[in-house]
């Protein structure tokens, strides 16, 4: 007994059995006012109090900070979305009812941003996840220097949205840009990546794809490594070739992971903001001269901090949240369907 206590009490030698020396004791006793009847019961009461309270103490930093900077602002955003709040006169807020939302629903730019968010989300997510599965499959082979390959695939993730977008904007420039220069070798006329709708949306999507494919590949790889080897063995015994094994063993086993990445990518796509902002350069918040790549996130920033209508920006933020919830609900339904059909 004594030796074990010493091991635990090591950094505070001499505290021994005196309860008052324990850090927990000193904190717990302060301000309670009741004189301890005896050392042993005093101590056991303290111990029970410690056992009860400390779990809440340990989780409280998260909930306090999230509450203060996440949850309460979320509710205030809803409140402000019902007000007229201007950046130029922050102290004058006036009730506006549902005006901001009515304003949004009748605004072409809102629907345009919604459509762009959807199309850019689609062309950035689908190829990204497909490529990621392919890369994960290759990384799952026995490779020379497997760690090096993994780190290299993840390097784009180290690049910030801002840095990556600045570089890609230059690569996609109309004349003198690397992409158009490379395209001319295969006989493609220069594409106006800034002005054309599809060109600009593709360019913005390619930044997302570049940054996130390796990350998702690692997530798939982790899931692939958890697939029991005997599944492959029995498939091989049944005469399945490599492709059939991939199709009938790997993919079904990955299904939960695929759904997870789809959900995470969808959330990311709904919030897409930095890439289109910086791709647009000086007038970035407009999302191009024709708003051709203005996403919802960008529209919110434009309305709130460029135009200066924070009430409307709040309404856009809540619309984004509602859209996310609808998407999540669809995902949930879809998952249930899949499970039932199995």
């Amino acid at each position: 007994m004594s030796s074990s206590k010493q091991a635990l009490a090591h950094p505070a030698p001499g505290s021994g059995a005196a309860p008052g020396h324990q850090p927990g004791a000193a904190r717990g006793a302060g301000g309670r006012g009741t004189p301890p009847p005896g050392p042993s019961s005093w101590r056991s009461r303290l111990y029970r109090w410690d056992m009860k309270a400390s779990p809440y103490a340990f989780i409280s930093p998260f909930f306090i900070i999230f509450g203060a900077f996440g949850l309460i602002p979320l509710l205030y955003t809803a409140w402000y979305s019902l007000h007229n709040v201007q950046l130029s006169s922050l102290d004058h807020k006036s009730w506006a009812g549902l005006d901001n939302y009515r304003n949004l629903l009748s605004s072409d730019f809102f629907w345009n941003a919604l459509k762009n968010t959807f199309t850019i989300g689609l062309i950035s997510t689908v190829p990204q996840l497909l490529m990621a599965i392919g890369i994960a499959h290759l990384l799952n082979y026995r490779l020379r220097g497997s760690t090096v390959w993994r780190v290299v695939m993840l390097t784009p993730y180290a690049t910030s949205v801002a840095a990556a977008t600045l570089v890609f904007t230059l690569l996609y420039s109309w004349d003198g840009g690397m992409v158009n220069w490379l395209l001319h070798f295969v006989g493609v006329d220069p594409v106006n990546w800034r002005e054309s709708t599809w060109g600009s949306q593709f360019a913005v999507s390619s930044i997302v794809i570049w940054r996130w494919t390796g990350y998702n590949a690692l997530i798939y790889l982790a899931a692939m490594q958890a697939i029991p080897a005997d599944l492959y063995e029995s498939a091989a015994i049944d005469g399945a070739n490599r492709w059939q094994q991939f199709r009938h063993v790997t993919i079904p086993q990955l299904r939960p992971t695929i759904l997870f990445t789809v959900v995470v990518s969808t959330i990311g796509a709904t919030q897409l903001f930095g890439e289109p902002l910086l791709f647009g350069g000086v007038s970035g918040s407009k999302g191009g001269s024709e708003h051709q790549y203005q996403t919802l996130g960008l529209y919110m920033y434009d309305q709130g901090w460029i135009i200066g209508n924070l009430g409307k920006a709040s309404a856009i933020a809540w619309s984004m949240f509602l859209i996310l919830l609808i998407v999540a609900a669809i995902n949930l339904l879809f998952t249930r369907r899949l499970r039932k059909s199995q």
Partner: protein
Amino acid sequence: MTTSELTLPQDRVPVPAARAPRRRVMGAGKQMHAGPLTYVVLVVFALVSLAPLVWTAIAASRTNTRLAETPPPLWFGGNLFKNLQTAWDQAGMGTAMFNSTVVAGTITIGTVLFSTLAGFAFAKLKFKFSSTLLLLTIGTMMIPPQLAVVPLYLWMADLHWSNHLQTVILPTLVSAFGTFFMRQYLVQALPTELIEAARVDGASSLRVVWHVVFPAARPAMAVLGLLTFVMAWNDFLWPIIALNQQNPTVQVALNSLGTGYIPDQSVIMAGALLGTLPLLIAFLLFGKQIVGGIMQGAVKG
């Protein structure tokens, strides 16, 4: 209680350092060797991953006029240090790098500490509503940051905190992902007997955390620290609203560069290079751990 009983679980503490013990070992022996075609495809993807970064360095070593010409430069020029200098002084990248180090460093310490405490409570302690609160924590990951920025901006303006670093540090000081990450790790890596043994000896909860939880959690804390630093360094939306070019973080300074603060492309590329360099170095040194952390979080998530 004998000495041997206590030393036994204590000896187990380092065991979790060997990562992912539950993963099947059998897969390793059966893995097929990669053919040459696999290597070819991987080389292509590796080139696509690295080329934009290498080209950033090439462009940063040229001049603005050269970057506007066709064909684009494919090799380094002699202007790198001049451009880096300009970016450092005139585009505020020097201040920005310092600020980002302070911001990301503080956020990392806070997130790792609070996530370990909360992760431990969720993994090993019994308390009312623990599973509900855990679900709630995970649920908060769904909430887009856009939903908080308008009120936060108004409050920070009221407090006259705009352009102060605490504005971007405080809201990001905790992480739902980190809490869940540490919980998943500690569920497996921290033997319950070890906590009980300490309890039997009358150790307070704080003492258990210090002497039992932190040693067991150290490998995961390091990985979470790296991931948090990367995320905090690259955070974009709230910093560009809360700060401006007078007192920028790296991303704010890059945003200013992108919106025409200095209309010289080679300087802009030098800024992008500078802002990415610390994380590239981190990847070079700790790439294996970062990769491990992402894969570990994935299996459990």
